[in-house]
């Protein structure tokens, strides 16, 4: 090829989406793939603080110490295998429980004549919108026994019964509270799978003489089975990366799971082993995603393809209708209003453990700093406490910036993938932007810690800045927005832009007057999920915050550690409130349906 021809070819192919593709892939490689490599390296070297654990070693030396200590010998039990077992038990049992609750609820709402469906559907996603460990805080407040000292819980106060340890702390409450947080996943995914089933499929079965029960068993259930399995894997993978709940409920009885072990390793000056645990978690995440796409990929499709859910008869619940309604309502109230109320009461109780009316106070909300009132903490009430207010401000800043960055990046990725459809690059970009999804939050946080704790080349150390938190959240939630962006862009088809190209419009003109106006609504509704996720994030940021960059979520850890639950609970109420209000407003303004974005 002559130079002229070559230059011509380069010029033709340097289209805006090709340039974007290169930039975005480079960015994603740096924030997704490089941290993985850095973490792997960290598991083979001696860190300064590990000098004394490994006789004769100098910082920076290569070592197999971390691998040996984690996987072999007497330390492997407490340092790896026991927490691994706990993680599996926790994730599997809570996923099954969540799936049962969500599946039954979905069937009741979609397929039966249960009343108040709209209200039930709305209420059923609230537990997911709340931070995952809200439920565990409420549990502690309700069922605390004297084991961890301080006051007793509301239950013991009212009944005088001292609850056993297994009920108050450890695996049992962890499984219950996580299941309550994650059942909305199952509810939403299984509902939509049930709605998507072509009613003709059922009608044909019924015409052939199959009864309701047989149809349910032979037609409906097999059709939603892929959705059920996929939901199980999804719930499982989210569950084992969570930190708050096992930390609050497992801590008092020294129950460790991988996420809390990872945290303990880092806090306990064993970064090498911490990164090793993170790698194991990432490996587990990848394995689950692989199973989801490979084993279920083919089967999954037939649920979504039909998608012609015509009118169908609802199953009449008959006499069971009202008992079922009461049961469902009671359950939903127990997992939404009750925890919220319990947290509110606790935050209004001056002396913990005394729930009489005379003990009610606003001290923890608006009281002055004092060492003589209530818990004698010397902390001002949260609404006049500069440290807490700054943390809240930080949370808002991080959430807003994350949402905007995710939205813009998601749209650009969607645009690029849609334009380069069919080429290798589209696949690579799609996969890369989805990778953070399979990284357990806390492991991903530790990867960022490894990458950004020191300056690398032109990139300064971001540790201790809000920018690091924004970056971590943006990359972690990118899968939501890139999926949304890709599907939105795929829908508008390239002709709309090509028509503008034919009219002679430049790329910026095409983006500003064609693409963006068409994407506006999905862009704005796509901001919601990253915003909410960032507002309530703990697992991801717990390793990355510093005293200067505390977030509302991470600051509750400090109060919980000291047993200052009223502060923790008051802050939690503010977070839940902020999240619910945002969801409600965006729903009113833009008709955003959160259910669509979740589960991606």
């Amino acid at each position, binding site marked *: 090829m002559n130079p002229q021809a070559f230059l011509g070819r380069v010029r033709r192919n340097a289209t805006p989406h090709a340039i974007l593709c290169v930039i975005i892939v480079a960015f994603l490689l740096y924030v997704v793939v490089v941290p993985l490599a850095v973490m792997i390296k960290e598991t083979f070297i001696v860190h300064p603080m590990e000098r004394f654990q490994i006789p004769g070693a100098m910082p920076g030396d290569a070592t197999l110490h971390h691998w040996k200590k984690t996987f072999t010998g007497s330390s492997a039990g407490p340092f790896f295998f026991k927490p691994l077992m706990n993680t599996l038990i926790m994730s599997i049992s809570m996923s099954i429980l969540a799936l049962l609750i969500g599946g039954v609820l979905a069937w009741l709402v979609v397929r039966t004549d249960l009343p108040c469906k709209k209200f039930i559907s709305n209420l059923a996603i609230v537990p997911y919108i709340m931070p995952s460990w809200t439920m565990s805080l409420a549990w502690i407040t309700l069922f605390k026994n004297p084991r961890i000292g301080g006051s007793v819980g509301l239950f013991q106060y009212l009944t005088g019964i001292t609850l056993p340890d297994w009920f108050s702390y450890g695996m049992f409450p962890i499984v219950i509270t996580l299941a309550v947080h994650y059942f909305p996943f199952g509810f939403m995914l299984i509902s939509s799978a049930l709605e998507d089933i072509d009613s003709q499929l059922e009608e044909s079965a019924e015409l052939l003489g199959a009864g309701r029960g047989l149809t349910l068993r032979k037609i409906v259930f097999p059709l939603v089975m892929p959705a059920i399995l996929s939901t199980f894997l999804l719930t499982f993978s989210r569950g084992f990366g969570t930190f708050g709940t096992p930390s609050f409920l497992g801590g008092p009885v020294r129950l460790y799971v991988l996420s809390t072990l990872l945290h303990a390793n880092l806090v306990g000056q064993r970064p090498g082993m911490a990164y090793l645990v993170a790698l194991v978690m990432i490996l587990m995440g990848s394995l689950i995603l692989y199973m989801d796409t490979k084993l279920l990929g083919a089967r999954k499709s037939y649920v979504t393809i039909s998608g012609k859910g015509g009118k169908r008869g609802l199953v009449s619940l008959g006499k069971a209708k009202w008992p079922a309604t009461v049961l469902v309502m009671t359950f939903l109230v127990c997992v939404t209003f009750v925890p919220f109320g319990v947290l509110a009461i606790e935050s209004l109780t001056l002396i913990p453990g005394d729930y009489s009316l005379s003990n009610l106070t606003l001290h923890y909300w608006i009281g002055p700093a004092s060492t003589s009132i209530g818990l004698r903490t010397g902390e001002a009430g949260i609404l006049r406490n500069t440290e807490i207010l700054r943390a809240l401000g930080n949370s808002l800043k991080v959430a807003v910036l994350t949402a905007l960055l995710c939205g813009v990046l998601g749209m650009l990725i969607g645009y690029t993938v849609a334009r380069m459809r069919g080429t290798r690059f589209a696949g690579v970009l799609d996969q890369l932007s989805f990778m953070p999804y399979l990284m357990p939050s806390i492991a991903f946080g530790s990867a960022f810690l490894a990458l950004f704790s020191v300056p690398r080349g032109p990139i300064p150390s971001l540790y201790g800045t809000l920018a690091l938190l924004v970056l971590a959240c943006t990359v972690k939630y990118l899968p939501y927005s890139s999926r949304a962006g890709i599907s939105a862009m795929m829908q508008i088809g390239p002709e709309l832009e090509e028509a503008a*190209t034919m009219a002679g419009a430049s790329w910026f003109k095409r983006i500003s007057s064609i693409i963006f106006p068409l994407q506006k609504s999905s862009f704005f509704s796509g901001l919601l999920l990253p915003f909410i996720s960032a507002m309530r994030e703990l697992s991801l940021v717990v390793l990355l915050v510093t005293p200067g960059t505390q977030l509302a979520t991470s600051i509750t850890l400090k109060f919980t550690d000291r047993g200052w639950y009223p502060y923790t609970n008051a802050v939690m109420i503010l977070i839940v409130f902020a999240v619910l209000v945002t969801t409600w407003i965006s729903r009113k303004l833009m008709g955003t349906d959160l259910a669509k974005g979740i589960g991606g």
Partner: protein
Amino acid sequence: MAEIVLKNVTKKFGSVVAVDNLSLVIKEGSFTTLLGPSGCGKTTTLRMIAGLDHPTSGEIWIGDRCVFSSEKGHYVPPGKRNLGLVFQSYALWPHMTVFENISFGLSVQKRRAEYIQEMTREVAAILRIEDLLDRYPSELSGGQQQRVAIARVLVMKPQVMLLDEPLSNLDAKLRMDMRSELKRLHSETGSTIVYVTHDQLEALTMSTDVAVLHNGILQQLAAPMDLYHRPKNLFIADFVGNPRINLIQGRLVEDQGRVAIEAGGLRASFPRVSDLSLVGQEATLGVRPEDIVLSSDPTPEGFKATVYSVLPAGSEWYVRVKVGNDLVTVTTYDDMGLVNDQPVWIRIQPNRAKCFTNNGELLAYIGQD
């Protein structure tokens, strides 16, 4: 109003060759249709002329301007080629009114507001959509959307109009109306039109020239009636015409010093082919259904057949008859009251049979001049 020349244009997507060494001259002022089944490379060819796709190699000229050359590195972007493209899906911008859709190109060119107003209304009047200017595309019917899409192109006064299956989303009746309108538009504006379709009837009814593409290769470029009566090969004969041409496997034989074909129970001779070395070869006889005459009484030159099924189609009847082991379609224009399994006699109209060699090339047709 310009001639379009494609010189040795090849387009590969990965290892798939979509257009294979295509050389084609689209005459100035012509209505040229690129016809072929899906995947034949016709839309790719159109998009390369538009500048939305780039040839892997070759040259494209519009008028006296080289808009693409892989060798010289020439490339003129779509917006500067002075041509308009009507998309199959119309690609109207759903967030803009009809007026904004039509005037978009002019506003990109930063024309004066009065000029934009004037031109947009003028074009809207031509296409009879002046009452719809404030509406949004979603409020229009399919036919109206079609007109807006054409207006959006016309307003730019392009040298060449490219249309990519513009009628495929319309219902059958509307399609008929739009065909005549497009043909009218062509004669009124006098611009060069390149039209892509897989519908052979559309190609025959509208075009001045038809280029048939198959597997990325140009099969034949001819006027519609030439294409119908003198297809260069088996593929074209089979693709053009509805109901399909009857194709019957047979063998070349000698008939009074000339070549003839015996196929199934039929026989046709080609008086102009005297190359007797062909005798003995396998070949295919092609006869269009309307070129066969059917009678319920024995005729001396007729071949005996039995009725297999009768398909009335309003103005005509399609009769499937069995000759030997082959099923042959015959078009009749009278109700002959035929019933299944009834014996009939069929006769090939003089000068209408075609013969194709084993590799699909046209060997001869009767009535060759």
